[in-house]
């Protein structure tokens, strides 16, 4: 699985991929993702969630010729992102023939305390 240049820009890498679950992505805290001093920028958190969602979709499709075009995203911000790595994982809630519904969650120290979550819909072309 090759992540696009935008993921590299955010510093996002695949941390682990096990048990057939969608991969967990990790984004280090750097000045490139900083918002107000000491906090992640909401846009960088949104970008990480979008990457986790599309990676989960690629994982579920398991088909290199298939593509998912984003139709829309809704992000809920629950906690400020502090200095430290942020992890995110997507879940494909429904994979249809034309539409995929994907959720993604981002957390820092404790996966039970998400800092943000997203719902995304994709149009599939195969």
């Amino acid at each position, binding site marked *: 699985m090759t992540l*696009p*240049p*935008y993921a*590299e*820009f*955010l510093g996002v890498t695949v941390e682990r991929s096990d048990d057939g679950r969608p991969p967990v992505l990790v984004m280090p805290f750097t*000045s*490139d*993702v*900083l*918002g*107000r*001093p000491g906090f992640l*920028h*909401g*846009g*960088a958190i*949104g*970008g*990480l*969630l*979008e*990457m986790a969602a599309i990676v989960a979709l690629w994982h579920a499709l398991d088909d290199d010729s298939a*593509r998912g*075009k*984003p*139709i*829309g*995203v*809704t*992000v*809920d*911000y629950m906690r*400020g992102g502090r200095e430290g790595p942020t992890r995110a994982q997507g879940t494909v809630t429904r994979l249809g023939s034309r539409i995929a519904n994907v959720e993604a969650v981002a957390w820092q120290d404790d996966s039970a305390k998400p800092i943000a979550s997203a719902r995304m819909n994709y149009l599939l072309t195969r």
Partner: protein
Amino acid sequence: MTAPAPSPAGAFGPFDPRRLFEARMGGHVGALGMGYRAHGDDWIELELPYADRLIGDPETGVMASGAILALMDMACGASIWLANRAFRPQATLDLRIDYLRPATPRNSVIGRAECYRLTRSIAFVRGQAHDGDAADPLAQVAATFMFTSAPL
């Protein structure tokens, strides 16, 4: 979200977005290369120049939707400072974007946001993004923000 706070006058200073963006901005906004275009009483227009590092689909060269999300988050937040006539700390509560079409490769994306309702605690914002023709938008956004300090 945000940016270095402008110099305070009183509790918080009057907000001048042009000065804010012309001073070299660091952090995520600076790394993305985001710039100022125009503003009014309750709206702002920002520009995100096309760059290879922002590509989301290497096959087509289309900019990542996440970068457009960051542009719209920033424009939404700045429109609230304008509507408030001052910088006031805030945090994004939720942000929804409809991606109407892919951004055209090599074009700058222009994001415009308008704060259409302010309450004591919450700001309501809407906006659109296009890549050259405002009549042919590529994204539509709706967002809410909460203030993280006491009312002005």
